[in-house]
Each structure stands twice: as structure tokens, then as C-alpha cells.
């Protein structure tokens, strides 16, 4: 059905972990993150020939992922999961000093308190390092919405993470 199947497989192997990392930040849950990436990749596969030719398969997958995450049904599912316990604190990547683990868990908890859209703008702006305009494009919202959501998200993070209270927002700079 889809031309360039081998190239699709190569794309998945090369980029799926990067997508999964963003998905984990969006959902806060390994299984939900896997669901999100699986759906994004499946839809990317459906559109592979077109996307491959214009060279933006990863952008398409990310767009699907973010839209899925803020969609109604996923918001409901995510909310149910996020109301539960935090995952065990074991660090899988060697950030094992107590201070680092504590800060990560605090930020993680603070992220969970954000709305799906606020969480999305934080991940887009401060993890994937997108501009406000790029974030707006990916989310299908206006730049002013991204500005607003970012400001509210940072305000909430400052309340919950003491180390971020002096966080310097970059509103209006485009980055």
C-alpha cells in the first residue's frame, strides 16, 4: 500500500525514541507515551508517500502527537492516569544524585498539574526549543495563544518549583 516501506522503517528506527521522549513529557506515563507515539507513527505511515516526498515526516508525526495529546478523549484518559501515584523515582539515565532526583520529581509533579495545552507549550518551547511561531503552527493555534499558555504554565511552575521562582520568561522575544 505505501511506497518506500523500507524508508519508513528506517525513519521509525531513527526517530521514534526522540518522539517517545517528548511524548513522555506530554503524558508523564510510559504506556500513554507509547500509545501516543504509536498513533502518530501509524498516521505518518498512512501519509508516508506524500510526507516522504516533501521531507517533513517527523514534523507531521509531531503535529499528530501534539494534536492527539490535547484532544478531548486523550485529555480524559491522561487526567485519569495523572491523578494516580508518581512513578518510582529510580533514575534510568544516571542522574542519580539526590538533589537532581528531587528536582526532577518536583518538576515532573509540577508538569502534571498543567493542562495538556500548557504542558504542550512548555515541552515545545523548553524541551524541543521551538519558537513561539513554530509552537503555534504545531499546535494549530495562534501565537498569542502560545504566549498566554506559556505565561500561565510558567506561573504555575514557579509556584510549585522553588528553584524556578526567578525564572526569566522570554515572552515577546519569539524564543
Amino acid at each position, binding site marked *: 500500500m505505501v*511506497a518506500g516501506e523500507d524508508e519508513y522503517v528506517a525513519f521509525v*528506527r531513527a526517530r521514534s525514541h526522540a518522539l*517517545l521522549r517528548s511524548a513522555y*513529557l506530554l503524558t508523564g506515563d*510510559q504506556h500513554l507515551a507509547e500509545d501516543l507515539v504509536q498513533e502518530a507513527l501509524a498516521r505518518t505511515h498512512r501519509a508516508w508517500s506524500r510526507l516522504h516526498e516533501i521531507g*517533513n515526516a517527523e514534523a507531521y508525526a509531531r503535529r499528530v502527537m501534539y494534536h492527539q495529546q490535547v484532544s478531548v478523549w486523550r485529555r480524559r484518559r491522561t487526567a485519569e492516569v495523572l491523578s494516580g501515584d508518581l512513578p518510582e523515582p529510580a*533514575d534510568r*539515565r544516571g542522574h542519580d544524585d539526590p538533589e537532581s532526583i528531587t528536582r526532577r520529581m518536583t518538576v515532573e509533579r509540577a508538569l502534571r498539574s498543567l493542562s495538556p495545552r500548557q504542558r504542550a507549550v512548555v515541552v515545545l518551547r523548553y524541551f524541543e526549543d521551538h519558537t513561539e511561531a513554530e509552537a503555534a503552527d504545531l499546535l494549530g493555534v495562534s501565537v498569542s495563544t502560545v504566549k498566554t499558555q506559556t505565561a500561565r504554565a510558567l506561573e504555575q511552575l514557579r509556584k510549585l518549583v522553588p528553584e524556578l521562582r526567578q525564572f526569566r520568561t*522570554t515572552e515577546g522575544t519569539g524564543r
Partner: protein
Amino acid sequence: MNDDDLLRDSLTEIGDQVKSVDFVDRSLARSKRIGRSRALASGAAAACALVLAGGLAWQVALTEPDQPSPATVPTALPSVTSSPSPNATPVGSSIAGLPGWLYYADSERLVRVTKSGVDTVLEKDAYAASVSPDGARVAFVDKSGKVVVTDRDGKNHRTVFQGAKYYGYEPAWSPDSERLLLAKGPDGEATKGILTVATGRFTALVDQRSAIHLLWSADGQHIGYATGECRLATADADGGNARVVPGFGSADVQANYGRRRSCDPYSMSADGGLISVWLRKGEEEDSDIARDLIADTVIDVRTGENVGLPVRGDVQAILFQPNGDILVRTVGKLTLLGPDFAVKAEVPEPAAVNDLKLLAYTPD
């Protein structure tokens, strides 16, 4: 470390917690399930007939950057063994009360409706097939990239070109039924152009921007297509003077209410001013590059707005005719509208084509 770095580092550390997963098999399996669901749902594509505002003015600028215009590319002539000799189209009609011939297809089979049932025109390779406007010939691209032209009955196969693209570039006939708008190229590349059937000569369009599902207006002056981002665009017949339809498909929610978009243009009006599409909105998933032969909405290319049709029911296809008429398929019914959208005929659709897609409607 400043606070900005602190947040970035914390996010990186959180992201690092996720366990690696192999998504190849999982995503392919999910993709197949989506495909099956879509096949089931496509027969019920619905649209309400709402009369909306018409156009005011042509758009004034392109929103996509220009790309280099390739030179005309003549190609080696194919191994033609006989010149085309299309059968004369017999006078008659598929259905009483509706002049002309109706063609339907699925991914393999192409049929023509007759008063007693259906005649099979192609047993296979109908996925990328098109019936010429004069109804005398059928062109299709097979999976190997051969462009084959047959007579109206699917006989007298003649390969007129090799190396054509299969997915996303179904051949669109010129109004004089002598040329085909299609694309050629290896995997990952597509050069859009016009193939002269009689000679096998391929002339590249002057603008090679992203374009799929090419259409050709009956006045011969315009082509239409979907961009790779599910917007619509029109251009002159040589591909130049490309214009992206304003608003429609735009990521700017203020310019595009409901996030309307389509990767599935289906038919273009005779003057190039309207394109029928399978509309996607909001969070609905984009369709893939496969040809769906579904249309539930008419878009005014000047304004990007929906154009209402005086038809009630679930619209499944909207096929513009060279004389300005519009054939609208709803569940179990075909309605022929005049250029002024007045109803000219309403006829029941034969049950034999319930599971097939409307491909073409040619004169009697």
C-alpha cells in the same frame, strides 16, 4: 546555571526516563487498522447542504516559496506499436433519466453502468485510472509505472509511457482527451508534467512545487491540486502562476475556521473556480496519499470558502462536467445540477455500484 537552563535540564532528565520501544511492527499494525476503519467509514462520508457565501476576490499572493522551474523534459518515446484508435462512443446512457455514461471503480475494477447492470472495463489496475472527457478512452498507471491507454471498453491496451508515479498522481485527462497530466520519477521524487498520448512526449510543468492528485479544468486553462500540507492550489495549465487557495488548510486558526483542509481534491469545475474535496476538519485525521474518490464539499478557490449545494443527504461525490453541470452522488441517488445549481435530474443509483466509488460521468 540560570533558571532557564534549570527547566531545560529538568525536562531533559524527565525525558530520559522513558524506556526505548520498537515501534515498527506496532505502528504498521495500527496503520492497517486505520486503513480498514477508513474503508468502512468512507461510504458514509456526510455533508449537509448549506448555502454559504460565495467568492469576493482572487487571492493576491502565494503562501509557499517558489521553487526552481525545471526545463521542459522530453522523454524517450515509448514502444508504441499502434496509434490510438478509440472506439466511437455509442449513443445511449447508463440510467434512464440521466443522459451519459457512469463509471465506477474500486482499487482494482473499473465498471460502466448499463441499464441491465454493469460492464467491466478493467479487471485490475483501476486504482489510478481515468476516463477521457469524450468517453472514448481510459488511461491508467499500473503499479510498475506504465501508463496504459485503452478504448472505452478496456480493450486494445497500449503502453504510452513508462516511469510514471502511481500513488498520488492519477492521470488527469486534458479537455481534448489527447493529453494526460501526471508525474514521473523514481521513489521519493516526482516531476509533474503533461504527457501527449499520441507521441509519448512528457513536458514538465514549469513549477514543481509540492502537488498531489492533479486536476485539469474543462476549459483547459487551469489545473488544481492538493499541496503536501492538505491545502489546495490552482495554476495555469503549464503549472505556472500557482495560487494557494486562501485560508483553506491554513494553520492560522483565525484565517481557517474549523481547521478545514483536504488532501483529496476530486473534481474541478469547467472554469477552474471550484474544486470538490473530501473535507477534513478540526482533529480529524488527514487522509493519506491514496486516491479516495470521495468528495463531500465544494471549495471556492478564490475565497477558500465552502459553497453549498441544494442537495440533502450524505454527499459522497461531486463531479463537475465540461458543460457546467454538476453530478452529486448521495446514498442511493444521483442528482444532476445545472451551472446555476438548479436540479436538472434526480435518479436512483443502481444497487450494483453501492460498494464502488464514482469515477467519471461522460457524455452520451
